[in-house]
């Protein structure tokens, strides 16, 4: 049975402080801490590319678990900011990690819902092809596309990457998924030259669609709030996470918000939280929900395997 063996994140050490932008964008501390929830955001080094972020996440993974690169037979990178338009970034990661030639590599082009889609994809792909050890990377450094003069985006996004090791030795299993798309909103979060975000539309989408999506998923699997230990929501902004939580009517302690010191890391935001929460012995069942560019959304139910 395929499962999550381990997750490791990498957040670059360089930080950009939003407090230093207070006069430029007419901000105050309350807005920074309680509305966007980003005091400072992580920024990759100028010579650090998307594949390098993946390699650094992998280096952190090897500090947690033993990984023999010759055993890796599947490698997926979730990104919309690849090293190049082509080839796929997973091929570059393949070279940098020295993976075997029988390793399947491909990218998935999704944003903030990408980890959930990626998790479902790698599990299904490995299952159907009898693969044994997979790496699912997320790395979407928005610093490549941010307009530093745009208040809607310049304060929120941070760079980061994660890697999830999939094999049959882990303690967490994905037991249910739900997915959705509303292509009518494709222009609400779009990059032609620089990133553009219609903040009102994205907020309205997240606050109106995501609570009912999560409720529907729980109903589909006959779960109530008492059955769920944590709701791991994509860290869009504090205001969005708080609004979804309030509309779900769930306890604040069940909805982690952790991005104060590194920002919205797009598809990495969920696995960065899971890296901690999967180690928490109190957690037996989690729901993780991603939502954003597309407009796209997805949720997974993760359950601890009692061995």
């Amino acid at each position, binding site marked *: 049975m395929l499962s999550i063996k381990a997750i490791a994140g990498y957040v670059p050490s360089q930080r950009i402080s939003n407090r230093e932008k207070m006069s430029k964008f007419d901000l105050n501390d309350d807005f920074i801490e309680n*509305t966007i929830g980003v005091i400072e955001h992580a920024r990759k080094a100028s010579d650090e590319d998307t594949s390098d972020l993946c390699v650094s996440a992998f280096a952190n993974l090897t500090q947690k678990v033993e990984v023999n690169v010759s055993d890796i037979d599947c490698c997926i990178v979730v990104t919309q900011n690849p090293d190049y338009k082509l080839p796929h970034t997973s091929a570059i990661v393949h070279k940098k990690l020295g993976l075997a030639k029988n390793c399947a590599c491909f990218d998935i082009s999704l944003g903030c819902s990408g980890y959930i889609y990626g998790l479902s994809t790698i599990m299904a792909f490995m299952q159907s092809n009898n693969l044994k050890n997979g790496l699912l990377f997320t790395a979407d450094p928005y610093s490549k596309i941010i307009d530093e003069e745009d208040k809607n985006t310049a304060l929120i996004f941070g760079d980061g990457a994660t890697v999830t090791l999939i094999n049959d030795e882990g303690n967490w299993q994905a037991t249910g998924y739900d997915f959705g798309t509303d292509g009518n909103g494709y222009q609400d979060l779009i990059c032609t030259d620089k990133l553009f975000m*219609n*903040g*009102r*539309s994205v*907020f*309205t989408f997240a*606050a*109106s669609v995501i609570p009912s999506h999560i409720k529907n998923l729980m109903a589909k699997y006959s779960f109530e709030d008492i059955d769920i230990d944590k709701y791991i929501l994509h860290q869009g902004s504090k*205001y969005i996470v708080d*609004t979804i939580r*309030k509309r779900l009517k769930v306890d604040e302690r069940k909805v982690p918000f952790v991005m104060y010191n590194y920002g919205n890391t797009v598809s990495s935001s969920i696995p960065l939280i899971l890296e901690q929460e999967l180690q928490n012995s109190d957690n037996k069942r989690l729901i993780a929900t991603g939502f954003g560019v597309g407009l796209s959304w997805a949720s997974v139910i993760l359950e601890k395997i009692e061995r």
Partner: protein
Amino acid sequence: MQATVEIIKEAILEAEVLNNVDDLVNDISLSKQGCDSLDLVNVYMILEEKFGIKIPDEDLDQLLTINGIIEYLNARI
């Protein structure tokens, strides 16, 4: 359903924008009465859901006061 002062104030409370809506003045902009732009986005979303309509961005300058919101909604439902 017709838009009324009470329904607009209920939406403001539901959005948790203000704790007390009793003293809101109907013809003064909500932004001058403690609602910031993000709060108003939240209120507009709740009203869109209540009334089953979509409020385009270009119409928002008609929805700055409670009276303006009522007039706008009642012209479209």
